[in-house]
C-alpha cells in the first residue's frame, strides 16, 4: 500500500485512514460533479444568450418548472442523507475504542504535552506499539487545547477538569507529528510533539527504561531530562534568553524582585515553592501563567530539577 501523502490528504498511518479517506474522496467527486455542472451550465448560457444588441430582450420568460425544481430538491436530499450515514457510521467507530486497548493519559498545558503510562512512565512524546488499539485519556491543566494527529486522521479537544477520550490503531512504524489545534495563547503554534510508533518488543523495552528514568543517573542528569520531558523548556531557557518565564541560567542564588512579595533570594525552598505553587510569588515583568506542578512532580523529580537548576551558572 502507498502510505505517502496525496494531493489532498496527508500520509497514512492508522486504521482510520480507511474511514476518512474514502469518505473524503467520494465527496470530492460529488463536489466536482455539482461544481462543474453549475459552472458549465452558467458558461454555456452566458455565451449562448449573451446580449448582442443593447435593446435585446429575453427570448422567453420561464417562471417555473415543478419537475425541475423538485428534481433539484430531491436529488441533493438523497445525496446528503447518504453522506450523513457514511459520516456517522465512520464517526461512531472512531469514537468507541474496541476492547483490549492500552491506555495512556495525556495532559496538555501551555504549551507542552505530557504522556503518562500506567507503569508510571512519563514522557513528552507519545510512544506506542504498532497494530495495537491505544486509548488516550485527555485533560488539560489550564485552558482548552486540542490533540491532532494528521497521519492518523483523528483529533479531540483537551478540556480542563474533564477527561475526553480518543483512540487509534497505528498501522505502521514511524514518527508522526502531533499538533495542538485549539487556540491556547502565545505559543499555540509551537505546541507540537510527535507520536512514535514502534514494534511491540521495542515498545516494551522502551517502557521499561521510561518507567524508571532516574535509574543510574545523577539528580543533575535526571533534572536535565525532566527539563524537556516535563515541558519546562516551553517557557524557560537555559541560555539566559528571556522567554515566557525567566531563564534558569544563573537563577540559583539570584535576587528576584517579586513585586508586592518584595525581593527574594532564590534558594532551594523558593524554587520548590515556584514549582508547587507558582502564583505564591510572581516575578516582576512576568504573567502568572506557569502551571501548578503540585501533585504532578514527585518529590524525587523536584529534587532533581533543583539540582539541575543549581548547575546552570
Amino acid at each position, binding site marked *: 500500500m502507498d502510505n505517502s501523502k496525496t494531493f489532498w490528504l496527508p500520509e497514512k498511518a492508522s486504521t482510520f485512514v480507511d474511514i476518512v479517506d474514502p469518505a*473524503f474522496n467520494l465527496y470530492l467527486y460529488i463536489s466536482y460533479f455539482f461544481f462543474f455542472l453549475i459552472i458549465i451550465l452558467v458558461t454555456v448560457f452566458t455565451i449562448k444568450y449573451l446580449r448582442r444588441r443593447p435593446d435585446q430582450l*429575453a427570448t422567453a420568460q420561464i417562471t417555473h418548472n415543478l419537475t425541475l425544481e423538485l428534481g433539484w430538491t430531491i436529488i441533493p436530499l438523497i445525496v446528503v442523507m447518504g453522506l*450523513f450515514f457514511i459520516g456517522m457510521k465512520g464517526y461512531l467507530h472512531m469514537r468507541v475504542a474496541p476492547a483490549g486497548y492500552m491506555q495512556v493519559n495525556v495532559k496538555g498545558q501551555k504549551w507542552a504535552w505530557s504522556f503518562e503510562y500506567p507503569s508510571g512512565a512519563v514522557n513528552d512524546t507519545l510512544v506506542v506499539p504498532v497494530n495495537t488499539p491505544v486509548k488516550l485519556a485527555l485533560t488539560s491543566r489550564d*485552558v482548552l487545547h486540542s490533540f491532532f494527529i494528521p497521519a492518523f486522521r483523528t483529533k479531540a479537544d483537551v478540556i480542563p477538569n474533564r477527561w475526553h477520550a480518543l483512540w487509534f490503531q497505528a498501522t505502521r512504524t514511524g514518527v508522526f507529528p502531533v499538533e495542538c489545534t485549539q487556540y491556547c495563547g502565545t505559543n499555540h503554534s509551537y505546541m507540537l510533539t510527535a507520536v512514535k510508533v514502534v514494534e511491540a518488543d521495542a515498545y516494551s523495552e522502551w517502557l521499561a527504561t521510561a518507567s524508571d528514568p532516574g535509574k543510574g543517573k545523577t539528580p543533575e542528569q535526571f533534572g536535565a531530562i525532566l527539563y524537556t520531558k516535563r515541558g519546562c523548556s516551553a517557557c524557560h531557557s537555559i541560555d539566559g534568553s528571556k522567554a515566557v518565564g525567566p531563564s534558569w541560567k544563573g537563577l540559583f542564588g539570584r535576587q528576584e524582585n517579586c513585586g508586592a512579595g518584595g525581593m527574594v533570594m532564590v534558594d532551594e525552598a523558593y524554587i520548590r515553592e515556584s514549582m508547587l505553587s507558582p502564583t505564591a510569588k510572581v516575578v516582576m515583568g512576568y504573567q502568572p501563567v506557569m502551571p501548578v506542578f503540585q501533585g504532578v512532580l514527585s518529590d524525587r523529580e523536584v529534587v532533581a530539577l533543583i539540582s539541575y537548576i543549581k548547575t546552570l551558572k
Partner: protein
Amino acid sequence: MIAHVQGDNINYLKTRSGIMNWLVTVDHKRIGMMYLASILCFFITGGTFAFLFRLELWSPLKEFLTPDQYNQFFTLHGVIMVFLVVVPGIPAALGNFILPLQIGAKDLAFPKLNLTSLYLYWLGAAIALWSIVAGHADQGWTMYAPYSLSQNPAVLWMMVAAFFLGFSSILTGLNFIVTMHNMRAPGMTWYRMPLFLWAMYATGIMQIFATPVLAITLILLLIENFFGIGIFDPTLGGDPLLMQHFFWFYSHPAVYIIVVPGFGIASEIIAAFSKKDIFGYRFVAYSSVAIAIIGFVVWGHHMFVAGQSELADSIFSFLTFFTAIPSAIKVFNWTATLYKGSIDLKTPMLYALQFLWNFTIGGLTGIILAILSVDIHLHDTYFVVSHFHYVAMGSTMVAFIGGIHYWWPKMTGKMYNETVGKIAAWLVFIGFNATFFVQLIMGSLGSPRRYYHYWDQFQIYHQISTVGLVILAIGLFTALINLIGSFWNGSVAPANPWGAKTLEWQADSPPVLYNFTETPIVTHGPYAFETEKA
C-alpha cells in the same frame, strides 16, 4: 397620497448639506450612506490586518511579527470583519438605502431608531478600536472560555463592543421587518416583493432571535471575568462547553445573517442583467426563510470534537445537511434564470457570477465539514478557514461589492467607469481564488489554523496565498477608486440605467427626500420583463 411639503423635490444629497445635518438626519438614505462609508473603512482595516499577518506567513520563521502580535492580528481581523463588516454589512448599508425604495415607502417605520442603530454601531466600533489601544486582545473571534477569562482588559472591551454592535443589529432587523409588514405601497403584495426584500426579511428574523443570545453570552463572560461566578470557568465548577453552545447558537445563525443578504443581491443582479424573471421566484423566496429557520438548529456542528455526546454530534450533523437543500434550490434557480435570457456582462453581473462560483465552492466545502468522520480530521485546519472565506468574503463581500456597483447610480446619481469596473472584478476573482483555494489543500493536508509557525512543507501554499491577496487587494482598491472617482468624472446617471423593473428604479437618481414624488401603485411583479418578439 399625502400632500408633500415644499422642498421635497430636491434630491436627498442636496436637501440640507453640512456635516451636522448628516449627523442628525433620520433619512434612511443618508443613514445608509453613512453606514456604507463606515463599513468600507472597517473592511479596509480588517483587510490590512489580514495583509500584515499574511506577509508574516511568508515563511515559517519570524518575518516581522512576534507570536503575540500575530495572535492579536488575526483576532482583530476576525472581530472587525465579522462584527463591524459582514454582519451589519449589506442590511445596514444597502438594505437601509434600498428597502424603503423597493416597497415604495417614504422611510423605514422607525427613522429615529434607525439613527440610534447607527450610533450604537459607531459606539461599538469606537470601543472595539479602543480595545486595540487598551492592550492586547488575542482571544480569537470565538472568545472560548477559559482562555477568554484572563481578565485581560482589551478582551473585556472587545466583548463590550460586540454587545453594542449586537444591539445595533437587533434594532436594524426589527426596523426592517416592521417596515415590510406595515409600509408596503398599494399593490405591493408579498409575492410582488423583490427577492432582496425576502432576504432582508429572513435576515431580520435571525437578527432578532439569535443576537440576544450573543448579548447574554457576552454579559455572562464579562461577569465571569469580573466576579468568577463559576458558570464557564471549569476550575470554579463551570462548563466551558456551555459557553461554546451559547456562542454558536448565535454565531451559526450569524453566518446566515451574513450570507442571506448576499443571496438577495445576487437575485436582483442576475434578473436585471439577463432581463429575465427569476426562475422559481417562490422557491427562492421561501428558501431564504427556510435557511433562517434551519440555521437555528445546527450550531453544534462547530463542536464535533469539543466533547459533546455522540448523540448530539449525530443529530447536529443530520440537521446540518438540510441546509444544503435551500442552498441548492437557489443555486440551480439562478442558473436556470440565465437560460434564454439576454445576458449583459456588466460589472455587477461579473460580481454576481463570481458570487455563484465562490458560493458553490464555499457551500460544498461546508457540506464536507458536516460529514462527522471527515470533520474530525478537518476541524480547526485551514480547510475551515478557506470554507468560511469562500462564503463570507467570496460570496457575501463579493455580492456586496456587486450590489454597490449595481445601486451606485441610484445612490449617488453618477455612473462609474465600466471598463475599469470590469478589470477590477476580474482581479478580485483571480486574486480571491488564488488566496483561498490553496488553503483548502493545505488544510486537508493537516495545517492547523491560528498558527504563527508552521511546517516547512506548507510554505509554498502560504506563499501562493499571500501573492493571491496582493492581486485581490489591487482589484479591490481599483474598484474603490473607480467608484469614488465617479463623483468627479462620472457621467450623470439616468433613473434606470440597467432597465430593471423593481420599484427603486422608478425613483429619481438620486431619489428625493421622501423617495417618490408620488406614492407608487404597484401593478406587477418585480421582474416583469418583456420577451423578444419572434
